């Protein structure tokens, strides 16, 4: 265990950036907190108190846009040039336990066969420094997915206690980074303090409205067709305006579309996040397989609650971060969906 004063963080970040490691940390801009690249300018607006960034740290392992290759024509011959893989080390600082799990969910998709090289390269360069949720919020329901907000995972875990960060490396990657910055850390053995903090967090989590348990047991792969054909989707989807807010702020939503852009001298192929809420999602030559918003809406929740668990040993692709609860323009969210299936038809 190590310790570092909150006020000394910028110094630590500066050290890292100077040594060729990008640092992304939560920064406040207006009413929003998001992970931003650390620079001297943002040092004063670092925000470790706000629980949730609007965008999840998914951005750093699966960016919204990833260029795949450039195609050029020379004398009527097409030449391809593959985009380089990520090769710069980086640290994401202050990742909440749910978001750490979110990255794990993505790993289970992108690092499994067939391995996605772009993702793999980015993931390999990154060190995740997680941060325990000292003040969980109303919309949190990580507990339902067995995520311990008091015991963050990742490469290094941090508990922020009285403006002091308690630092514990959890993996080899974490240990390496710790060694690198050891001179800026203090040794610490305040295990009691951390344990007290963890207890406090767990109590707070238990008191949250959503922690009374969500009927997730209703969503089992064997009931796939039953749930798929359930009449409740009709009503549930009525308020959906088909935007991609929930998808894009979700730490686990992972779908992308592949597009070409004619930049004149070359054509650039890239992939970008897609949302199953969009009418052209999985649009194929024959047309669209999901023609109504109800079908598209259902797809999102079926994927998170049934299809993904079916393929990944029961792992839901929701981590209970509550971003969608907070941000849906129509106040729809996955909790409402889960709860509505509480009673069997």
């Amino acid at each position, binding site marked *: 265990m190590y310790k570092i004063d909150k006020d000394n963080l910028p110094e630590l970040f500066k050290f890292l950036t100077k040594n060729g490691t990008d640092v992304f940390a939560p920064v406040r801009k207006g009413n929003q907190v998001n992970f931003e690249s650390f620079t001297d300018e943002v040092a004063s607006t670092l925000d470790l108190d706000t629980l949730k960034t609007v965008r999840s740290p998914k951005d750093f392992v699966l960016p919204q846009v990833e260029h795949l290759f450039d195609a050029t024509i020379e004398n009527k011959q097409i030449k391809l040039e593959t985009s380089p893989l990520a090769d710069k080390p980086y640290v994401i600082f202050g990742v909440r336990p749910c978001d750490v799990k979110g990255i794990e969910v993505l790993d289970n998709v992108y690092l499994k066969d067939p391995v996605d090289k772009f993702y793999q390269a980015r993931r390999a360069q990154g060190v995740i420094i997680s941060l325990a949720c000292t003040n969980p919020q109303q919309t949190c329901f990580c507990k339902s997915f067995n995520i311990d907000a008091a015991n963050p995972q990742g490469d290094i875990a941090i508990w922020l206690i009285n403006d002091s960060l308690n630092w514990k490396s959890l993996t080899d990657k974490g240990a390496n980074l710790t060694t690198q910055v050891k001179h800026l850390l203090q040794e610490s053995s305040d295990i009691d303090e951390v344990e007290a903090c963890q207890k406090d967090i767990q109590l707070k989590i238990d008191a949250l409205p959503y922690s009374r348990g969500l009927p997730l047991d209703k969503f089992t792969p064997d009931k796939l067709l039953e749930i798929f054909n359930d009449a409740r989707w009709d009503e549930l989807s009525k308020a959906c305006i088909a935007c991609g807010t929930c998808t894009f702020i979700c730490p686990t939503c992972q779908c992308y579309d592949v597009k070409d*852009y004619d*930049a*004149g*001298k070359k054509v*650039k192929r890239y992939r970008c996040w897609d949302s199953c809420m969009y009418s052209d999602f999985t649009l194929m030559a024959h047309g669209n397989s999901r023609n109504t918003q109800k079908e598209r809406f259902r797809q999102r929740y079926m994927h998170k609650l049934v299809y993904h668990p079916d393929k990944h040993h029961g792992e839901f692709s929701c981590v209970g971060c509550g971003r969608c609860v907070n941000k849906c323009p129509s106040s729809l969210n996955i909790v409402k969906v889960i709860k509505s299936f509480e009673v069997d038809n």
Partner: protein
Amino acid sequence: MSVGEFKPLVVAFCCNWCSYAGADLAGTSRLQYPAEVKIIKVPCSCRVNPLFVLRAFQKGADGVIICGCHPGDCHYSTGNYYTRRRITLLYSMLDYLGIEKGRTHLEWVSAAEGVKFATVMNKFVEQVYELGENRRLEDWRCKS
């Protein structure tokens, strides 16, 4: 006129009936205007979609100018009255977003105004030279 290596690209949308004919007249009268100007013929200035203007900037234009018949002279009677409102609002919005005003222009040029056509183009291109390369409305993918 030239500043360093920079050679701007100016896209001019000209209506078929007045301004394109005005450009032809400038040609037949051997009136010089910069080769930086590339003309696209449209039936009427009201055919110019704000999307086209943005598209030009995206793809690398440093200035966009729209030319149409003088108000009252539109071949289609009313086309340029719509253009006038549409483009005024568009240019005002671009200005509001901090895009340099000198990069966009609208001019009424009749079929008889070859001299005016050349003068307008000379002036506009010079203005774009002064502003330099379009940075604020560029798409980096289309550069290099």
